[in-house]
């Protein structure tokens, strides 16, 4: 292969892409767009959920077992009411089921709890939701923990003393903390914030790596379709070999993709550093993941790209090429499909297995490194790169041969047997 020709193809392809408005918009606008959309969605959701959470509700309680301590209840208009929590949820104590069911049917109650006659033996409390109760609201409510507390208090009232009484009521206050990036410093951390800090950066980095990979591969599919549809293929092939065209396209569009990824990663780092300062060092920047990300991007892109180029060349037009290459993209997306498992257990069997599969290894390694760098061995990172390198070499070799067959195709697709013969 002649380096100058590859460079000429690469330069042309690179400039063709980076001069497009769509590329500039995607490179500089996408992270801002994603941040704006996710911020808006999160903000709106949070607002409505908090509004909903702030709404007070009434619950019914029927004490058939006669175990409830009624001293907490206040009589109002002939009803026994208990203000259960800060949200002003109220529990109405009924003497019998019929009156309670009537209020539940009318919609006055969100749910009805019945402490059955055999409660002391079975512990059974029947919970009946109103038909009008919105989905998820029953589980989301904080009424059940306070009912439990009320029951506990009623059961031990007068039987235990002092601190023991208190500890039975509240056995433990969890004071949450974790080690900061500095090592020993212990800081208080809200559970939600902890989850956010642990998942946001790996998630963003992973999504950006995948988006950059698929975006660069998408450009490859597009350029092959353009060549075929504009019928310039013969002119190109009378000057350069299919291998040189393939290599030129891979390098040119890969550089465009790498620049895109670098811009996006820089923005993630910037956000992480800013967040780190703002959250008093809760956030640790995954420097290891960021360091290997460009290498994984290049290898992953060369592997996926050469397969995509070869497959795209078999399509007669852009739509057909995109259909043919969809399978490769789906394989690359796989880690994102099992993201919850990877975030929960980054170094489990699934994470380890996907580290060694060339389609999934770039994204998996990035996620594992950014969630918990200490759990992945250096030989795993290097090994996955080696597997990726070998797979890339193979896919470029086979891809170049298929590319030669596919590039000149204008009509029907060759049979699988013919493709196999050419690829050997």
């Amino acid at each position, binding site marked *: 292969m*002649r380096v*100058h*020709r590859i460079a*000429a*193809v690469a330069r*042309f392809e690179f400039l*063709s892409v980076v001069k497009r408005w769509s590329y500039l918009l995607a490179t500089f606008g996408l992270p801002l767009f994603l941040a704006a959309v996710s911020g808006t969605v999160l903000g709106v959701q949070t607002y409505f959920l908090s509004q909903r959470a702030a709404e007070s509700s009434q619950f019914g309680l029927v004490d058939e077992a006669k175990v409830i301590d009624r001293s907490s209840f206040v009589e109002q208009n002939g009803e026994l009411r208990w203000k259960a929590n800060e949200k002003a949820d109220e529990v109405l104590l009924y003497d019998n089921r019929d009156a309670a069911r009537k209020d539940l049917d009318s919609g006055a109650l969100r749910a009805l709890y019945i402490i059955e006659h055999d409660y002391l033996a079975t512990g059974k409390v029947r919970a009946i939701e109103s038909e009008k109760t919105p989905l998820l609201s029953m589980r989301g409510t904080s009424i059940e923990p306070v009912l439990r507390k009320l029951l506990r208090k009623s059961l031990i009232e007068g039987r235990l003393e002092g601190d023991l009484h208190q500890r039975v009521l509240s056995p433990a206050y969890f004071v949450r903390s974790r080690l900061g990036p500095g090592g020993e410093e212990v800081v208080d951390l809200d559970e939600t914030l902890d989850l956010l800090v642990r998942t946001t950066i790996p998630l963003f980095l992973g999504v950006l790596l995948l988006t950059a990979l698929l975006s660069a591969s998408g450009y490859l599919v597009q350029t092959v379709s*353009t*060549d075929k549809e*504009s*019928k*310039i*293929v*013969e*002119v*190109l*092939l*009378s*000057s*350069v*070999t299919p291998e040189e065209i393939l290599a030129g396209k891979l390098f040119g569009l890969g550089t465009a993709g790498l620049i895109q990824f670098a811009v996006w990663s820089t923005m993630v780092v910037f956000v992480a550093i800013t967040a780190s300062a703002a959250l008093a060092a809760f956030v640790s920047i995954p420097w290891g993941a960021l360091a290997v990300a460009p290498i994984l991007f290049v290898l992953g892109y060369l592997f996926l790209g050469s397969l995509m180029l070869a497959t795209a060349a078999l399509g007669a037009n852009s739509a057909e090429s995109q259909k043919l290459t969809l399978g490769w993209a789906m394989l690359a997306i796989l880690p994102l499909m099992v993201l919850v498992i990877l975030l929960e257990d980054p170094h489990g069997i699934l994470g380890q297995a996907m580290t060694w599969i060339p389609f999934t290894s770039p994204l998996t390694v990035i996620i594992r490194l950014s969630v918990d760098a200490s759990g992945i061995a250096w030989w795993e990172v290097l090994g996955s790169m080696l597997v990726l390198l070998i797979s890339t070499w193979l896919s470029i070799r086979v891809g170049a041969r298929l590319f030669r067959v596919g590039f*000149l195709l204008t009509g029907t697709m060759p049979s699988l047997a013919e493709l196999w013969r050419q690829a050997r």
Partner: protein
Amino acid sequence: MGVLAYQGVTKRFGRHTALDRVSLEVRSGEVFGLLGPNGAGKTTLIRIGLDILRADEGEVSLFGAPPTPRNLDRTAYLPEERGVYRRAKVRELLAYLGRLKGMKRAAARDAGDHWLERVGLSEVADQRVESLSKGMTQKVQIAACLMTDPELCVLDEPFSGLDPVNVALVTELIEERRRSGRTTLLSTHMMHQVEALCDRVALIHRGALVVYGQLDEIRRRYSPHEVMIWTTMDLVSLGLEATQRTAGCWRVELPASATPAGYLNELVRNGVLVDRYEPLVARMDEIFVHLVNGGS
């Protein structure tokens, strides 16, 4: 050995034999006409010669050796199915195609500008190709072909879509190449252009070589043994096998042993006042139709 030579070349696509043991050569400095009806196998033959396709059987030599990327740099190709990057600017496209042929960046840009001027398109150099008319786009492609001054230039239907002025321009460019000793392989259905330009031709039909050789010799071979004579005299009354076409114009079938020159001498010796004398030579379109319709 010719600039481009095929020896027993066969190419099959599945069960269809596109080329069947074709042997011919294109010689240095000539304009060679590759003729044949649509689907005859001309494009396949060209693609094999330029190593775009590989033959199933037979040998191809380009500049005396099997086609290699290095000797392909000495060729240029204008395919019948015209292809350009429509969103590229004209100057950028030419520079790119020049680079693909191994030219340095500055040389490619200069050559592109020079050839745009030659084909009268300097003013559109910075426009996108998609803004050009079909004829202008075709001239850009011809400029792209000639900008490297290739030793062998393969032009597949270079005149299609061009107006008479531009047909004359392209004809002149091909003539210029012949004068400078460059070789041109011309595939066209415009038979009068073949007659005007080609030194030698090959006619392919259904994948097989039907006719191959010097253009003049082929035309003579397929010509009737007749002459046209313009005279005021009545040739029938002189005992000749003549048919009057128009007033003063006679078509005469020559005796089997006679040559046109010898026959003219004999006429003059016998006192026939000949105003004009023309041996009948078959036109290439007649030969083409004759052979394609099964003539031998």
